[in-house]
């Protein structure tokens, strides 16, 4: 991922900054600038998520892509944030510990190293806990 492409999304990736439709109250993470429910009547505002959620489904990735920082197997999950939206994330925990319904909270971590430039990308991962 290019530097510009990554930096553009830093508030979202570092701080879980998404959006909210103030017309209907629906939250969006990843952020959307267009509410699929209210369409042109939707008013979109920035919303910082609290960073708490529940595992909806997960897997343990054994053969990871080259540039990811996690050594060995890592837990990948879809979590439902308490505000409503679902997102894909890594869970830092013992792979045997991961469970559907497990409570998780956000932490700031290294995500990947860009192979060519060597630039380290940071972002949000989740750990077990309230």
């Amino acid at each position: 991922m290019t530097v510009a492409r990554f930096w553009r999304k830093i508030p979202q990736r570092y701080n879980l900054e998404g959006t909210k439709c103030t017309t209907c109250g629906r939250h969006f993470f990843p952020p959307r600038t267009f509410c699929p429910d209210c369409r042109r009547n939707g008013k979109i505002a920035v919303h910082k998520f609290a960073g708490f959620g529940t595992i909806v489904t997960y897997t343990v990735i054994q053969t990871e892509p080259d540039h990811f920082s996690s050594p060995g197997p890592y837990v990948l999950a879809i979590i439902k944030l308490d505000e409503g939206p679902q997102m894909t994330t890594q869970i830092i925990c013992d792979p045997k510990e991961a469970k559907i319904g497990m409570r998780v909270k956000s932490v700031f971590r290294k995500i990947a190293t860009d192979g060519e430039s060597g630039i380290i990308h940071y972002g949000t991962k989740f750990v077990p806990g309230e």
Partner: protein
Amino acid sequence: MRDVAVIGIGCTRFGEHWNRSFRDLFVEAGALALEDAKLSGEKIDAMYVGNMSAGRFIEQEHIGALIADYAGMATRHIPATRVEAACASGGLAFRQAVIAVASGMEDIVVAAGVEKMTDVEPGASTDALTGAADREWEGFVGATFPGLYAMIATDYMHKYHMTREQLAQVAVKNHYNGARNPIAQFPQEITLDTVLKSTMVAEPLRLFDCSPITDGAAAVIVAPLDRAREFTDTPIKVLATAQASDTIALHDRRDISTLDASVAAGQRAFKMAKLTNKDINMVEVHDCFSIAEICAIEDLGFCRKGTAGKFTADGETAIGGKIPVNTSGGLKACGHPVGATGIKQVCEIVQQLRGDAGRRQVENAKIGMTHNVGGTGATVAVHILGRV
């Protein structure tokens, strides 16, 4: 709208063609289709080509013109259009060809699909395929394609208590069929143990739950039904063409283990053909992973939600069962050159309907269906074909 028929089919062998180029592959498939339709190239009015990622795989874009050129049609200046919807590119190319003929705009149209995936390192091809999902919010955080389908499998097994053995039966059955298909990449039968003892890729999916990296090309020729007998004694009528879309990311779906786009495309196709799932004699579904076939046969209505594991283990999806699924061997055993897969599915159903499927022939096959998925279900194309 005019009725449309398939008048010719052609498919290369699927596999690792280290000694053959992208151009060699599609020229072979096109020539086979023309020969099958006893047609010369001058009769072709237009081409649609399904291709996912030649830019990433062989650093070549502008595939429509390239194919028309190397098929010998540059001097005739026919319209040649590339269609891209990740792994559903082929299904969409076929649909565009059918629409072009149905509309009356064109008469004789080629729908082709091609992918040359083994010219890059496996890591690079895996990364290119991740572009079929949401690069920013799935790929970037560490989702691989097997990882996304593994999360569908985890959700499904949690909700419906399908066993790991039942899931493995999908691959065992598809390899049995692939062993009877001369173009298959892996024409070997396997056992339950082969699947259950293969390398873990993304829990619960193992290597033998995953379709391979494949080179290959396929082509079909469509024409107005009322002209079809000029070219063939066995025209196959296109009874329905349907397409649907959904959220690009898996995490935004209403239900993780239902592909709502499959449900929508399936319902639209049945409505258009004025048929139900009971009328279908065999179906080619998009089994990029074993769990994808489980979801597909439920989403298309061939069995109730949550029962596809038992349905498969009971042999109902085998040749001779209630609804034979993936007689070609599917993506798992026949191979999955992404842009070509949707066209290969049509080739397989046409062979079945003509009675030309040899050792994998479904008895008395009159109506067949194809189901081609892009990404984790953000695009689905469904077609129904029938004997005339």
